[in-house]
């Protein structure tokens, strides 16, 4: 086994996902198959190979530091599931 049910639960906690016992079981089985499959990469020697995170060689894209119009407060808040006209409202944290 590449991954245990306990590890699946741990990863789910990191990702802010709740899984039922049934989901943990099914996900563990599927993740195990996928992780076993991707282990084929270990057959390749990659010592000294530069990792690629971006397919084109673009470096920092700078632009002039000019003020442009942006969303108004009302537009930015409009999709908030709960808001008070000034800010998004969330459950009390302190």
């Amino acid at each position: 086994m590449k991954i245990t049910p306990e590890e699946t639960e741990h990863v789910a906690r990191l990702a802010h996902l709740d899984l039922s016992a049934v989901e943990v079981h099914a996900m563990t089985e599927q993740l195990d198959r996928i992780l076993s499959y991707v282990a084929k990469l270990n057959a390749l020697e990659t010592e000294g190979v530069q990792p690629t995170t971006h397919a084109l060689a673009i470096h920092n894209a700078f632009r002039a530091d000019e003020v442009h119009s942006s969303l108004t407060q009302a537009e930015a808040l409009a999709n908030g599931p709960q808001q008070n006209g000034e800010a998004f409202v969330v459950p009390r944290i302190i």
Partner: protein
Amino acid sequence: MELYSLTIHEVKELLASREVSATEVTRALLDRIAAVEKQVGAFTTLAPEMAMAQAVAADRLLAAGQGGALCGVPVSVKDVLCTKGLRTTCGSRILENFLPPYDATVVEKLKDAGAVIVGKVAMDEFAMGSTTENCAFGTPRNPWNLDYICGGSSGGSAASVAADECYASLGSDTGGSIRQPASHCGVVGLKPTYGRVSRFGLVAFASSLDQVGPLTKDVRDCALLMNVISGHDARDSTSVAQAVPDFTAALTPGLTGLRIGIPKEYFGAGLDPEVERAVRQGIATLQAAGAEIVEVSLPHTDYCVAVYYLVAPAEASSNLARYDGVKYGFRARAAETLADMYRNTRSQGFGDEVKRRILIGTYALSSGYYDAYYKKASQVRTLIIEDFKKAFAQCDVLASPVAPTPAWRLGEKNDDPLSVYLSDIMTISANLAGIPGMSIPCGFSQAGLPIGLQLQAAHFQEEKLLAVAYNLEQRLTITPPRPKAV
């Protein structure tokens, strides 16, 4: 000939000569949608009133002899692209009621060109899937046979074009999501070079792989759409300041002097014999058009799926962290703490495939596993890119199948995510390398399902793809064994 079965370049002529008006064309398409949409199910949101208003505006411009390249042409847009004031769900409950406050750059470009947006089309949730069965709002059916998948994740785009519900659609492609449904539905699909088309307003799945592109009825329409959507955008820092040619100028007869490489690894075990026959026939047609055929090798092809299913979920797990129930979208009710609110919102809002990929990605990036999974995959990605560089030293364009099989039956692979992942083996590497790829119809299976031929070229060589595709289209006579189901 019905208005809805024309191509863009055909209907443009009628519009320019004022034989028909944009409102007549749009009305004809909305009627067509009303007639077949119950069977096809391509749309998540229809916008008939907005479309008619855009058609009226297009008619005013056309009457004055003005109007852009798509003036009065009805199109659909994949529900992953933000459309101002028009619901954009990404196929997910978590964005069920999201009304974007702005247009994606490509949508802005469509509107500036005068296109009429008839609605948003279905997709696998957050573009994660190859069948559009992961859409929270229903799965489109293949217009050639309603019991079959239309492919994915841009399944609604391909189905809406194949069913003549619009003249063209914009899709997105992270591992084949334009090319594979185009192949399964018998339409033309192009994934441009990474950076050719702006991603601003494209809801992110895997940011180093995602690219927007057109699905159309023929190659000329594909070139027309590419003219409209390509170009640098200051709002997307990964878009490239590369001159945009007139892509229609590439559509010339004859391929003399062009070398077409056949990657031998794409014709190995697991390739359906009907697909192989159709693709080989397509290659012979290109040879008859004057192209030289050479065998090439992409030795790391067998590792592409493994690399992709680490890199894409890793990027997705980070990108999808933004869905927390605070700023937009769905929020679970009755949570007492902020952490509960996050967890309940995400657990109720995301579907299984999205959760699965978030878990894979989180695992691959987590402490202790990063080097073994994410870094290793990123190193093999370099080897895959080097394969392409070597191949393109020997040829201009690669020709291959798009997918190992034609479309399969709805529901057939629901319990087997890995087998669906493996069906992406021929399309994924173009995204990993950032190169352009295209799907062009080349035949049918005996069961009457379309088969596509894939073309790939080096960065920013879309014109070569279009030239080859155009010659294939002009020379290859494809007779479907049975008509479309709609």
